[in-house]
């Protein structure tokens, strides 16, 4: 009892966490709306009023920046919840879409689908292709990691490598299909460049269904957190429960990947921060991980846009701008190292 009490004391009250995260998400999205090329900060507010004085500015704001912010929030939330589900189901605090082959497989699935013409961009079929790819990527890691796959660190190292192998295959396909640069960058590192309202409309239903399902699964997650024996003793078949949770996780990752590509480490950091904030109760963890993921991706994109503005441009430059995936992978790597050095983190899950 005392241990539980102490654990509670370290975490933040749930309403406080949720409200402050909502505020952060709003701030990050505002940053995305304000920063960027083609529309200086001072002209954003007039364009937001849609008074017709600056038609080009209004188009930039309403047709490019708003959908971009919406997609960032939704995809970030998907990645955060996906990582949480993977961490609970695999009982591995270092599991996340990009470290389990799921993210790389999903990207490969989409690119393969686009290349073969079976799916078209911004269509729901691309999410399905990503889903198949994600399952395949996870299976590949499962096959290759061998007997030591229960060791979280070993599995993670293998996951990184399998991710590299999958992105190699993706690169081959990108070259084969003569992909244009912006799209290629999205599939290679995760980028929010060139998103439109169609992308937002694509990801919204999947995000809603997936996160809703994850929240409904939270009693199952709570049982799985206790281990297989515990699950059996309360009458839950751990294998099928785990499969359902994993499928939901891959679905969420696929939804995010099919619009923004694999923005690294969002799915790793969000659940870790969430459990540090609100403890182990899945009913709270799911929404909080979603919010942190949304803040992370949206904030990363705002930062990327800001940095792009700061670096001077050549006279005839057609620069793409910093991809959000770069920011998340650099920031995430620093946090991952911090997590590895805090040995306690690795011991809690195993």
């Amino acid at each position, binding site marked *: 009892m005392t241990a539980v009490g102490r654990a509670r004391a370290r975490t933040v009250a749930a309403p406080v966490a949720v409200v402050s995260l909502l505020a952060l998400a709003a701030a990050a999205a505002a940053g995305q709306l304000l920063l960027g090329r083609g529309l200086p900060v001072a002209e954003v507010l007039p364009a937001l009023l849609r008074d017709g004085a600056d038609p080009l500015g209004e188009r930039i704001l309403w047709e490019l920046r708003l959908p971009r912010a919406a997609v960032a929030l939704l995809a970030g939330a998907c990645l955060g919840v996906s990582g949480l589900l993977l961490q609970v189901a695999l009982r591995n605090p*270092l599991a996340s879409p990009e470290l389990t082959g799921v993210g790389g497989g999903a990207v490969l699935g989409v690119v393969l689908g686009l290349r073969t013409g079976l799916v078209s961009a911004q269509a729901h079929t691309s999410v399905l292709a990503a889903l198949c790819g994600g399952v395949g990527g996870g299976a*590949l890691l499962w096959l*290759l*990691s*061998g*007997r*030591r796959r229960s*060791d979280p*660190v*070993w599995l*993670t*190292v*293998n996951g*990184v*490598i*399998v991710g*590299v*192998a*999958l*992105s*190699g*295959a*993706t*690169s*081959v396909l*990108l*070259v*084969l299909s*003569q992909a244009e*640069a*912006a799209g*290629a*960058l999205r599939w*290679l*590192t995760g980028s929010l460049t060139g998103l439109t309202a169609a992308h937002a409309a694509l990801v919204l239903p999947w995000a809603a269904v997936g996160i809703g399902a994850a929240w409904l699964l939270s009693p199952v997650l709570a049982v799985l957190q206790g281990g297989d024996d515990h699950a059996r003793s309360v009458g839950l078949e751990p294998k099928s429960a785990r499969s359902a949770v994993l499928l939901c996780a891959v679905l969420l990752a696929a939804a995010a990947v099919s619009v923004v590509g694999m923005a*690294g480490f969002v799915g790793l950091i969000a659940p870790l921060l969430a459990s540090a904030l609100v403890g182990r109760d899945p009913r709270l963890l799911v929404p909080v991980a979603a919010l942190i993921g949304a803040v992370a991706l949206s904030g990363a994109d705002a930062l990327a846009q800001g940095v*792009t503005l700061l670096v001077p*441009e*050549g006279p*005839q*430059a*057609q*620069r*793409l*701008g*910093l*991809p959000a*995936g*770069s*920011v998340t*992978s*650099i920031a*995430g*790597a*620093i946090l*991952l*190292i911090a997590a*590895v*050095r805090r*040995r306690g983190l690795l011991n809690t899950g195993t």
Partner: protein
Amino acid sequence: MTPDPAGSRPGARPPAAPLPPAGPASAVAGEPAGAGQVEEPHPPAGPSAPAVRGPAGPRTAPGPRGADTPGRAGRGLRGAASFGAGAALLAAVCLAALCLGEPVLSPAGLVSAIGRPDSLEALVVGEVRLPRMLLGLAAGVALGCAGLLLQEALRNPLAVPELLGVSAGAAGVTAAITVFGLPVAAGLVPAFALAGAVGGGALCLAVARRAGDAASVLLTGAAVSTALTGSVYAITSMADRFELGLVFRYLMGSLVGAGWEELAMVAPWLLGAAPLLVLCLPLLGVLGLGDDAASALGLDPARARLAVLATAAVLVAVTVAACGPVSWVGFLAPVLARRLHPHAEPRTRLLWSGLLGGLVTVGADLAARTALHPIELPLGAFTGSVGIVGGLLLLRAAGAKAVPR
């Protein structure tokens, strides 16, 4: 470089770490429990044999080998024969790299083309295919050797340039020089790449300093590499015009457009590194015995490891400066070499790693540029996928064999 972490971290710990190298000669401390014993089936003979011949031996007989004298001559002969076969295969692939492409030449046509220096064929072979093949060969051999040095020195099969921040560090610096047009003489680019490689590797090892076991070190390395890779994407995306070829070149390696200039850039560096490589051999043999045995033989394991790592860093950096980190060749080649000759001494493994590295790189480049002719596939993406999946399967098989023990 910080000598202590570079040296002692992964290697000094294994005896205390939960990992298994009970056998002092386990070459793969990071391997699944028991795999080390299989990879290196000499432990009973290992410690005593070199301890006896150690002082006289390091240069001439650098390996923990020799308990079974009767079979030795025969094995040496067979080893030479199989190495000869490998070299012949490499020569065949190199010849194919010169002949195939557009236009296709027969070996006889190749000879006659050389006779007519003004012909189109001679131009294609002399200015395009030959330097490209030679650069691929040099890069593959260098990376194969560097991979072996890293794996043996850190005693972990996953200790590869790609996971230690070495490749990505060199690639980041080279990409920044190219993209931002920094005023650096072409001959000095490898030096800057070396600084990047050493910086990336030192960052990894410094950060990994307090991480306990070998796997945590690798995880830290993977994180640092991912961050550095993210920086390469960031740098290339800041170019005035984003070019996918640039990304492929610096992240995965590519021989597109490789010519005599690139070759001239790397040749002096590689020639300089070759004697270092030879000097590393005895160190590898002793380091393979484990740190305790190495200290008992009068070798400072931390310093020896640092020397080996520095040599590997030079090899990787020079390659990256010329054609990018030809992905995961440094992983596949040594693992394959160890699979082919699990009991061999370091010298044999080094030769085989170099040979297989060259074979894989030249062969993959040949496939990448001819398989779907008008489109050239990125070489590194090719070797990366094949190398990782193949290497992990090989490691997995080695681990599975160890189960019964």
